[in-house]
């Protein structure tokens, strides 16, 4: 009896973890979609709102411009949908239908884009990204 209860509890916990992961994947993908939609609309501020703090400040340093101006000058996909989504602990991957990918981190304000416009150039090496923190 005790074993059966423990097994049911395990299965429920696994199911709950699975559901939780799917929800978090959707949340991360939504941030990625919002980011690229803002670029399509030419709204630099809205795009920068989706960025991780470290990524935005690195961009400002590199380009010597405010984030909302600098972000519009990068060669990032304008609009698009997420075809592949993965969440592992507090990191996420959003593969866009057009081919490139975004990486996201989960912080106190939810998911934020830490790298965008990423492509796998060399197998088993970090992706090369147009924007990263």
């Amino acid at each position, binding site marked *: 009896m005790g074993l059966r209860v423990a097994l049911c509890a395990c299965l429920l916990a696994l199911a709950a973890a699975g559901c939780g992961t799917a929800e978090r994947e959707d949340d991360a993908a939504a941030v990625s979609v919002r980011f690229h939609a803002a670029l399509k609309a030419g709204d630099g501020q809205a795009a920068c709102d989706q960025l991780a703090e*470290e990524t935005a400040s690195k961009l400002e340093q590199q380009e010597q411009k405010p984030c909302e101006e600098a972000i519009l000058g990068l060669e990032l996909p304008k609009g698009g949908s997420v075809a592949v989504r*993965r969440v*592992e*602990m*507090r*990191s*996420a*991957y959003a593969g866009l239908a057009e081919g490139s990918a975004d*990486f996201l*981190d989960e*912080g*106190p304000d939810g998911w934020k884009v830490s*790298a965008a416009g*990423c492509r*796998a150039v060399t197998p*088993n*090496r*970090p*992706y090369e*990204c147009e924007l*990263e923190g």
Partner: protein
Amino acid sequence: MRRFLKHNGLSVAFLVLFLAAVGGQAIAGHADFNEEQIRHGDPELSLGRYVVSADFGTAVMENWQSEFLQFTLFILLTVWLVQRGSPESKELDKAGRESDEEQKVGPHAQRNSPVWAKVEGIGRTLYENSLLIVMGTIWLGTWFAQSVTGWTQYNSERLDHHMDTVGWWHYLGRPDFWEKTLQNWQSEFLAVGSMAIFAVYLRQRGSPESKPVGAPHTATGVEG
């Protein structure tokens, strides 16, 4: 209650030690995890979220699996392998599964033998091997759990470094999985092997894990 504690002191003591140690591991692991988060400028995690994280899961499971493997192997190998002079070993001429008479099963069962020792068939076969089956199942279950939590942790690190994730099957071939596994196995094998040899020559008065202090070094399968 007092009588219960006196008769079950060993299991109660180890249960209390286990709970204290696993609680301490959770608290220390949580503090260590958050120190690392602060160093990387990442947000801290609550204790509740830490104990259900892959970090804590891997740390616990990789130790559990190796402990249960240790006992599974010890139970299995001591059926056939002996160690001259060791109280951990059977007598040298008793290697193997032994006769029904020696094992007190079937017609040789005693009045107070467990019911499954008295019957014939699959029920008895399962009961004859029940210790190995349960310990082995827990070992495989916890090793599987280690592979899943380790895989999550590994993929999270890959995403942090802007790399693609890998599948579970692929992770089983990665050095990360085998390093976590073998670093625990080697310590268990060393400890068990040391115990089998040390107990030939060394004694602990009053412990059933040792031979009686005055027993000769050549006496095998004798417990104090």
